[in-house]
């Protein structure tokens, strides 16, 4: 299965809620070790695209391929596919009744059959790497938003996913907490983790992205390296959007 092709390929993806078309004819290629940033206004379809990739939403047309295998085939075991990806949500979604350590080790133990000792040693290692060593025993409600989101990222990483999807992971945070989470994501990107992230942090996107996709009204209007999409956008819609979020762009 694993080969030279892109790790993730999205072809002609369509998603409809009622009579509202949320994604139309979306194509996306993500190579290994790439960092792809999805930008666009709220409601442009960034989150839905990520949820479709993680099979949290059934698609209405088109296909998603992970490492050469079509995962949108209904016969595919969605659970096994999700086990190969990590997803982090805007609102953290930690399990409030579990300690940080249990949040992080749940999937390794229950889905990937690791022993508690193995899962915990990996969890402690990850938590230490991201400055959360002393939080292992805490429950999520004792942590700040930034700490919770960092735990959520660690939880997603604990199963050694091939691909990590980040859905506006800093949007629910107080401004002074955004930095610590972005630092973590930057470390992942530099470490070679394949990332697809929806984000409103344009300067961050410019810094870490290998590819930026601008979504408008459910379609990818423009994609390319950040220097091009974010600095010299070809499309008028992209320019309008960037002017709104980055006032200093002419």
């Amino acid at each position, binding site marked *: 299965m694993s080969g030279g092709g892109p790790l993730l390929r999205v072809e002609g993806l369509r998603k409809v809620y009622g009579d509202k078309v949320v994604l139309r004819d979306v194509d996306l290629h993500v190579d290994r070790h790439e960092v792809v940033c999805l930008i666009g206004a709220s409601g442009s379809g960034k989150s839905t695209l990520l949820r479709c990739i*993680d099979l949290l939403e059934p698609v209405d047309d088109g296909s998603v391929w992970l490492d050469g295998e079509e995962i949108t085939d209904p016969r595919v075991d969605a659970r096994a596919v*999700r*086990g190969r990806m990590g*997803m982090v*949500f805007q609102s953290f979604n930690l399990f409030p009744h579990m300690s940080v350590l249990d949040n992080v080790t749940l999937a390794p133990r229950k889905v990937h059959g690791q022993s508690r000792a193995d899962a915990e040693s990996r969890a402690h290692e990850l938590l230490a790497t991201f400055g959360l060593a002393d939080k292992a025993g805490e429950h999520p409600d004792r942590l700040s938003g930034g700490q919770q989101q960092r735990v959520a990222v660690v*939880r997603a990483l604990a199963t050694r996913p091939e691909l990590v999807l980040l859905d506006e992971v800093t949007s629910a945070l107080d401004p002074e907490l955004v930095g610590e989470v972005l630092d973590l994501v930057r470390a992942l990107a530099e470490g070679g983790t394949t990332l697809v992230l929806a984000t409103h942090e344009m300067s961050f996107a410019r810094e870490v992205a290998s590819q930026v996709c601008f979504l408008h009204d459910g379609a990818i209007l423009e994609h390319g390296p950040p220097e091009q999409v974010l600095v010299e956008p070809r499309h008028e819609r992209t320019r309008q959007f960037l002017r709104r979020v980055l006032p200093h762009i002419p």
Partner: protein
Amino acid sequence: MTAPASGSPATPAAVSQDGEAWVPSPRQRERDAVRRRMSRRAGLISATATVVALVLLVLGVTSSPGWPVVRETFFSWEHARDSFPTIIRGFGINVMLFLVAEPLILLLGASVAVVRSTTAPALFPLRALAVGYTDLFRGIPTILVVFLFCFGLPALRLQGVTTSFFWLGLFALTMSYGAYVAEVFRSGIESVHPSQRASADALGLSHAQAMRHVVLPQAVRRVVPPLLNDFVSLQKDTALVGAVGLFEALFAARDYTNYNFNFTPYLVAAALFVALTVPLARFTDWLGRRYARRERAGTR
């Protein structure tokens, strides 16, 4: 209940946790004094109002024209004393019914709720059974279930089916309450935010694993107060089994009344039930308040 910030005014120089010495300002001391005065006044008013209300109630009842007869037939000390031993023996059966039925009901209710939340096609018959069961047993009055089980089941003359009214009545209560408790559990399961399940899905957990590790633990915590409320109700509904002649507290009271033409034993039984249910009711209130406080603390 509006206790003023105690301590600080009495000890003018307080030392806070981080070791900072703090002397309340004259304005703060004045405020504390006013608060203490106000809370004393509130205590005085509520005490007076309670005493007045009680006196009025007692006067109202005792001054009614039928009071002397009522006092003789409902509040006779001799009859209370004479009937007490049999009633308390019967009450032991109520307590036993409750203690045995409660865990069975929890088990049944939780299982039915979990079955109803499954999605596997092979489990469809079980789901249909669960839906049919809750609809049926929530619809039939509990006393009718007791009659049907206690008189109907033995009449079938099935091999190995008990004819003991205790066990048949216990079975009836379990089936009847199990349906309610299943719905309580189900509402708890549905109250867990969909994002929690999405999170479990995203980690690759199966439906059963998500239920077991993520949804149920949160659901159970939320439904403890309403469940306890159902158990308060169950404690007194154990008396329904008396309707078929099981010698529990209410039946014992009725038995005594029939021979002595005095209703005091009913009040004795009532007092016993109240004594049993009030602690659980208070505990439920306390737990509910604690959960409410914690939920509020969790929100930002």
